[in-house]
C-alpha cells in the first residue's frame, strides 16, 4: 500500500494497538498531525509537553500497556527530557515520537533543531533517527518491542519532516507489515538457571530471619500473585518499596510496608536484622539501603532481576539470578514443592513487637489547630473506593501518601521514585484516568508540585478526564524545609510558598475544575465525599495543612538504617513501654 511517512506512523501506532496518544503539535511534526485527524485513536492535547510525557507514563503504569507521547522538534523534544528520564529510572514502557527538521538540514542549526537522539541517548532504553519512511513500520514495531520486553523503559523515535510530509517526494513509502522482531543484541533472559533456583531455595528454607525485599520489578513482571504465593508458602515477611506499593496487599499479615529513608520502623529494622534478603525486582537503591556499609550487615542475599547489570552492582549477592520475577518465583515455588522453612515464630514475634512499639503514627492536631496531612490522607483513603488509583507528587506529601494509604491492589500507586520529579502527579493521574476511565483517580499533590504542572488540569477539563486532586497545601517546599530544619539549623532558604498568591480555588476554577478549600478538620470528610461524587469534571480539594509537620520515621542522609529516627513523641512512648516491661 502506497502512503506517506506521516500516514505510515499513525498506521504503525494502530498496528501496535495504541489507543491513546498524549501530545502537542508543531512545525516538524505537522505532517504527522494531519494524519492524526484520520486515525482510529484518541489524541489528548496537553498544555505542556512535559505533561504529555508523564501522562504516557501514568497511563502505562495503570494499564500495563506502553504509553505514547508525540511532540515536535527542538523545544518540544527538550520538554519531554524530564519525563523520559523519569520513565527510564522507573522502568516505564513508553514510546516517544519526536518531529525533527528535514534530514538534509540536520547539523545545520536549522530552526527548532536539537540533537534529540543525542540528548536522550542516556535517558532512553534505545532511540532511533529514521531516514527512510519505508523503515517506519519496522522501527515502530521494534520500539514497542524494546520498550515492553526485558526491563521496560522509554524508546524514542525521531522523525525528520521530509519523510512524513506528503508534499515532499522523500515521504513516499510502501507499507509492509512489520516482521517479528529479531535483534541480535537484545535477547532478554526470562528463566533463571535451575542450579541458582535450587541454591536460592536452599537458603530460603534455612534462613531464620528472612525478608522478601519486593521492588517495582514485581509489578513490571506482573508477578503480584506469585509474590504472595511465595511469601505465604514459606511464611516470609515482605517489605514493599516505594515502587512496589500494592505488590502485596497492605492488609496482608506478612506485609511490613515500605522500607527506606521514610519507611516504617519495622520494615527498616527487619531488613537491618535479617539473615537473608530475598530481593525480587529491587535494586538496592540508596534511598532503601541508607549508608551501604551499615546496611543489613548479617544478611545473605538472593537477588533476582531481569537486568543482569543490577546483580552485584550495589550489594554482592550470594545467589544472583538473572530472570523475570514471575518466571523465577514460579520456578522457586516448584522447587520448594512441599518442603517447609525453618520455624520463624521468634522472628515474627520480634517483628510484631516492633510494630506494636513503633507503628506509623503522628500526633493529632491540637484542638483548633491546622489539619494534619496524615489525617487528611487517612480520611481520603477511607472515603474513596478501595481500588482508587493514587498518583503522587514529590515531597513530604508523597511519603505520607505512601505511608498512610492502604494499597490492597497492584497498579494503584503511581509515583516518581527514581528521578523524584516534582509535578509528576497531575499529569500521571490524567494518564491513568485516560486508560482506566471507570476508576477513581486521585492526585495527591504538594503546593510546590501543583504549581509546576497544574496547567494540565485544563487538559483534564477539556478532554473530560475527571481526575481529583488532593492538594496538601503546607505553604512550603516542605521536604526541603524539613531538611533545612533538621540539618541546616532551621535556616529556611527559599522554601516559603505562603503567597498570598496563588489563590488555588480561583486558579482551579479558572481551569475548569470544581474547587473546594478545607481548613477545618470537621469539613474534611464532607469535602472528600463531595469530590468523590463529581464525575463530570476535575476536582481540586485544597487542604490547608500544618506547615511544619515532619515526615517520620527518617533515616538521615548518609546514616546507617540502624540510626532510623522515629517521631519524638514515639521515642518517649517507647521508653515508657520499655520501663513497664
Amino acid at each position: 500500500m502506497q502512503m506517506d511517512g506521516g500516514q505510515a506512523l499513525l498506521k504503525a501506532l494502530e498496528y501496535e494497538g495504541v489507543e491513546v496518544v498524549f501530545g502537542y503539535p508543531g512545525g516538524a511534526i505537522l505532517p504527522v498531525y494531519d494524519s492524526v485527524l484520520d486515525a482510529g485513536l484518541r489524541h489528548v492535547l496537553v498544555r505542556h509537553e512535559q505533561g504529555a510525557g508523564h501522562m504516557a507514563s501514568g497511563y502505562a503504569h495503570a494499564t500495563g500497556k506502553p504509553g505514547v507521547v508525540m511532540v515536535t522538534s527542538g523545544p518540544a523534544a527538550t520538554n519531554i527530557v524530564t519525563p523520559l528520564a523519569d520513565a527510564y529510572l522507573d522502568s516505564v514502557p513508553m514510546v516517544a515520537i519526536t518531529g525533527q527538521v528535514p534530514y538534509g538540514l540536520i547539523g545545520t542549526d536549522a530552526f527548532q533543531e536539537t540533537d534529540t537522539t543525542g540528548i536522550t541517548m542516556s535517558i532512553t532504553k534505545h532511540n532511533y533517527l529514521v531516514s527512510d519512511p519505508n523503515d517506519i513500520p519496522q522501527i515502530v514495531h521494534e520500539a514497542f518491542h524494546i520498550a515492553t520486553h526485558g526491563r521496560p523503559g522509554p524508546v524514542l523515535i525521531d522523525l525528520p519532516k521530509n519523510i512524513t510530509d506528503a508534499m515532499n517526494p522523500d515521504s513516499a513509502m510502501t507499507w509492509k507489515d512489520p516482521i517479528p522482531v529479531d535483534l541480535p543484541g537484545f535477547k532478554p533472559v526470562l528463566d533463571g538457571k535451575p542450579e541458582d533456583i535450587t541454591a536460592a531455595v536452599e537458603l530460603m528454607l534455612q534462613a531464620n530471619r528472612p525478608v522478601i525485599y519486593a521492588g517495582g520489578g514485581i509489578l513490571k513482571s506482573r508477578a503480584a500473585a506469585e509474590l504472595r504465593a511465595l511469601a505465604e508458602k514459606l511464611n516470609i515477611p515482605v517489605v514493599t518499596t516505594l515502587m512496589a506499593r500494592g505488590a502485596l496487599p497492605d492488609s496482608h499479615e506478612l506485609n511490613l510496608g515500605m522500607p527506606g529513608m521514610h519507611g516504617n520502623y519495622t520494615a527498616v529494622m527487619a531488613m537491618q536484622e535479617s539473615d537473608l534478603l530475598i530481593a525480587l525486582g529491587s535494586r538496592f537503591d540508596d534511598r532503601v539501603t541508607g549508608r551501604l556499609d551499615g546496611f543489613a550487615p548479617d544478611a545473605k542475599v538472593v537477588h533476582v532481576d531481569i537486568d543482569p547489570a543490577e546483580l552485584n552492582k550495589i550489594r554482592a549477592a550470594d545467589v544472583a539470578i538473572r530472570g523475570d520475577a514471575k518466571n523465577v518465583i514460579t520456578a522457586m515455588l516448584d522447587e520448594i514443592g512441599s518442603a517447609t522453612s525453618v520455624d520463624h515464630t521468634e522472628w515474627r514475634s520480634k517483628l510484631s513487637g516492633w510494630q506494636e512499639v513503633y507503628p506509623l503514627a503522628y500526633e493529632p492536631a491540637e484542638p483548633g489547630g491546622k489539619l494534619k496531612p496524615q489525617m487528611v490522607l487517612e480520611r481520603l483513603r477511607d472515603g474513596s473506593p478501595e481500588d482508587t488509583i493514587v498518583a503522587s507528587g514529590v515531597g513530604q506529601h508523597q511519603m505520607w501518601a505512601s505511608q498512610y494509604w492502604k494499597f490492597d491492589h497492584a497498579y494503584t500507586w503511581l509515583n516518581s521514585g527514581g528521578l523524584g520529579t516534582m509535578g509528576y502527579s497531575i499529569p500521571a493521574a490524567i494518564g491513568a484516568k485516560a486508560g482506566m476511565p471507570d476508576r477513581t483517580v486521585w492526585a495527591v499533590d504538594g503546593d510546590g508540585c501543583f504549581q509546576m504542572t497544574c496547567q494540565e488540569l485544563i487538559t483534564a477539563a477539556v478532554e473530560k478526564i475527571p481526575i481529583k486532586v488532593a492538594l496538601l497545601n503546607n505553604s512550603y517546599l516542605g521536604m526541603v524545609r524539613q531538611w533545612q530544619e533538621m540539618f541546616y539549623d532551621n535556616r529556611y532558604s527559599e522554601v516559603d510558598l505562603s503567597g498570598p498568591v496563588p489563590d488555588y480555588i480561583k486558579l482551579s476554577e479558572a481551569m475548569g475544575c470544581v474547587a473546594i478549600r478545607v481548613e477545618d478538620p470537621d469539613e474534611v470528610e464532607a469535602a472528600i465525599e463531595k469530590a468523590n461524587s463529581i464525575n463530570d469534571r476535575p476536582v481540586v480539594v485544597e487542604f490547608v495543612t500544618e506547615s511544619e509537620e515532619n515526615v517520620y520515621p527518617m533515616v538521615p542522609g548518609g546514616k546507617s538504617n540502624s540510626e532510623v529516627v522515629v517521631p519524638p513523641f514515639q521515642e518517649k512512648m517507647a521508653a515508657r513501654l520499655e520501663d513497664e516491661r
Partner: protein
Amino acid sequence: MKRSQLAETHTLAVLVENKAGVLARVAGLFARRGFNIESLAVAPTNETLSRITIVVDAESAPIDQIKKQLDKLINVVDIQELDGEHSALREMVLVRLDVEDESRVAEVEELVAGFSGSVIRVGGTQMMISLSSRPNDLDDFLGKLQPFGVQELQRTGAIAIPGIE
C-alpha cells in the same frame, strides 16, 4: 604514559551493529558511568557489523559491571573479554622524526629493523616510520626513538580478536 606503568587494564572485543550513532552510544555510556577508556579502536568488519576494541582501566569500575552495562545497549551484539595469551592483540604507531643530522638516519633504520617496523619515507633529516606490534613493544620502541627527535606520533590503540583456544 607507558602502558606498562598503568594500573590493570582489560581488553574488550565488542561486536556492534553498523548503525548510526553506535560509537556515540558506547562512548557516552563510558562517560556517563565513569568508566575510563584507555584506548578505543573501531572499524566495520562487514556490511552489518563493526568491531570495537576497548581497553578499559579496571580500577574505574568492576569489569563485570562495565560488560553488563555495555550489553544493555541494543546495538551491542557480543562482548568478549580477551586475555593476552590466546587472543591476537596488536597496535600500530606512526612517527615522524627529525634526526637533525643525516648520519643518524642509518642508526634509526637499524633500530626500526630490529623491531620489524618500516621506514615509510625519508626526506633529508626527516623520517616517517611505522610499527605494528604488541603495545608493550611500542612502548619500548618509542622509548628508544625519543633521543632522535620525535616530532609527531599517533598510536591507534590496541585492536584485538579472540584467539585460538
